[in-house]
């Protein structure tokens, strides 16, 4: 299948400007500058491209919130702080095709009137960081960006900004705080970043995968992008599969693709015991599916919502029937307790207590009351905090305990 995002992944030296250009790179630039910015935004709206970081908000709509003709500069922040457990797609986009992202940045920047973009990349990325920094340096040296964009009268600077180990900085307002040289504490919204974002200026924040789809949409048009996926979830998506499958990895598939086919056809089936127990579909923060639910699920925003879960980041974690769901949830609870920024009491205390109770049940046992208490704490975390980190733990807690209660009861 001809794809949108991963066409150059297998080509040698795909990360270099030379190879990128030999394989169709930066071809959209002439067309881009011959089109009005407002029409670019309309085209992206028509494509139906939705934010691939997790929330799935329509990208074109997000751009259209940027006020026109203000006196403040407009900033673009590229969210490359990929840190949702089970997610490793942006890493490959940065390692294998960094110029595709830069071309996407140019398209978005021109559309919203931005002249300085920041790529916020997580501190743990090694090769991905070096590759995107080298690509930006190469782009400057060859006149792709800088005082002009490939000779077009448009100034565009790109700065790669390295984080330092904090999951919360993937939350868009925490990312802004971090970029401003502060602790990564999420901001209260409104005002939304489109009005008051980076350095108090209007700001667009888009995920690496979202921006990487733009060169295709610009070259081939919104309709071509819509040949894949469903009406409400058009296009392709990167799915990162980890855990108990024979061929874990990143797969680009049309949205709406059956989860069963992803596991059995693409990934070579369930590894370990060979019998499926549970699947997480969108990174560790979304409600878990049982094997039965998973086998009838389709991978798009709406279909997964109907199943009571979410597409999220596309991080698919597969668990065979040897997995103790109490052990798995205890592992995740530790993660969220560690990563809570500590601003909001329900999250800071709730995540800590959730881990402590699960750890006690795991090591020493407990009573039915402990399970009720865990669910009560989860209820008190949802929707009561500045950002959704609290919800991101509460959803696994509720779904793991409700759907796999026997794994918890056996330890009581």
């Amino acid at each position, binding site marked *: 299948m001809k794809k949108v995002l991963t066409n150059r992944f297998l080509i040698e030296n795909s990360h270099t400007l030379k190879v990128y250009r030999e394989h169709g790179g930066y071809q959209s630039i002439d067309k881009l500058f011959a089109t009005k910015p407002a029409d670019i935004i309309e085209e992206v709206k028509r494509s139906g491209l939705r934010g691939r970081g997790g929330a799935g908000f329509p990208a074109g709509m997000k751009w259209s919130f940027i006020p026109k003709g203000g006196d403040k500069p407009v900033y673009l922040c590229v969210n490359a702080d*990929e*840190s*949702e*457990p*089970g*997610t*490793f797609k942006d*890493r490959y986009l940065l390692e294998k095709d960094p110029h595709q992202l830069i071309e996407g940045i140019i398209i978005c920047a021109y559309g919203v009137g931005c002249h300085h973009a920041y790529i916020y990349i*997580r*501190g*743990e*990325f*090694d*090769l991905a960081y070096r590759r995107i920094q080298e690509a930006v340096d190469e782009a400057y040296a060859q006149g792709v960006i800088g005082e002009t964009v490939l000779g077009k009268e448009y100034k565009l*600077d790109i*700065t790669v*900004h*390295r*984080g*330092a*180990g*904090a*999951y919360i900085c993937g939350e868009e307002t925490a990312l802004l705080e*971090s*970029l*401003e*040289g*502060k*602790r*990564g504490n999420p901001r209260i919204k409104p005002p939304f970043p489109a009005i008051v974002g980076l*350095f108090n200026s209007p700001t667009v924040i888009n995920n690496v995968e979202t921006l990487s789809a733009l060169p295709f949409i610009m070259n081939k048009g919104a309709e071509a992008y819509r040949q894949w996926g469903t009406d409400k979830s058009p296009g392709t998506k990167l799915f*990162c*599969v*980890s*855990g*108990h499958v024979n061929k*874990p*990895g*990143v797969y680009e598939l049309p949205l709406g693709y059956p989860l069963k086919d992803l596991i059995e056809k693409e990934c070579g089936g369930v590894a370990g015991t060979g019998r499926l127990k549970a699947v997480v579909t969108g990174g*560790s923060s979304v409600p878990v599916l049982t094997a039965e639910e998973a086998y009838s699920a389709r991978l798009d925003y709406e279909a997964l919502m109907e199943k009571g879960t979410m597409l999220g980041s596309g*991080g698919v*974690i597969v*668990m065979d029937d040897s*997995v103790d769901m109490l052990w*798995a949830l205890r*592992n*995740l609870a*530790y*993660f969220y307790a*560690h*990563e809570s*920024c500590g601003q909001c009491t329900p999250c800071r205390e709730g995540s800590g207590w959730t881990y402590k109770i699960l750890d006690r049940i795991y090591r020493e046992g407990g009573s039915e009351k402990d399970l009720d208490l865990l669910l009560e704490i989860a209820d008190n975390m949802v929707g009561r905090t500045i950002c959704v980190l609290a919800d991101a733990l509460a959803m696994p807690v509720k779904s793991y305990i409700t759907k796999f209660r026997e794994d918890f009861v056996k330890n009581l």
Partner: protein
Amino acid sequence: MSFTFNEKNLKKCDAILKCYPNKQAALLPVLWLAQKQQGYLPLDAQEYVAQLLDLSPVHVYGVTTFYTMFKTKPVGKYHLQLCRTLSCALVGMENIGHHLKEKYQLEHDSVSKDGRFSLELVECLGSCGSGPALMVNDSLVEHLTIEKLDKLMEKLKKD
């Protein structure tokens, strides 16, 4: 106050400042630079960075202690970060952690007596499809097995 940037890093610092509209925004990259020069961020390095960027020392201290990759204590010559989150745990991370403890006496947040190794159990490294994953200083080692780990440790011991 004894920490100062060497000449090369002072130049790098100037280049970093040009990328931001104010000095505070350069804090993370400048702290990375200081950590690279010193190996970690002792208080005098934090105070130096604060002065350089017109920030209060307490602001800088608040930032260094928020981000897990900024080290306020020395780490080993080889700082090992083993991913402990679910995807790596599903494919055997716990055995690796156990082996590091039994054979090399390395536990979370510990430094070996000779200062050569330190270990930290960290959260998701974004290497979920190729776990268990271990960072050795800046380099990622994937598909880790006990045998692979032993070979790696032997090599690093001799370096």
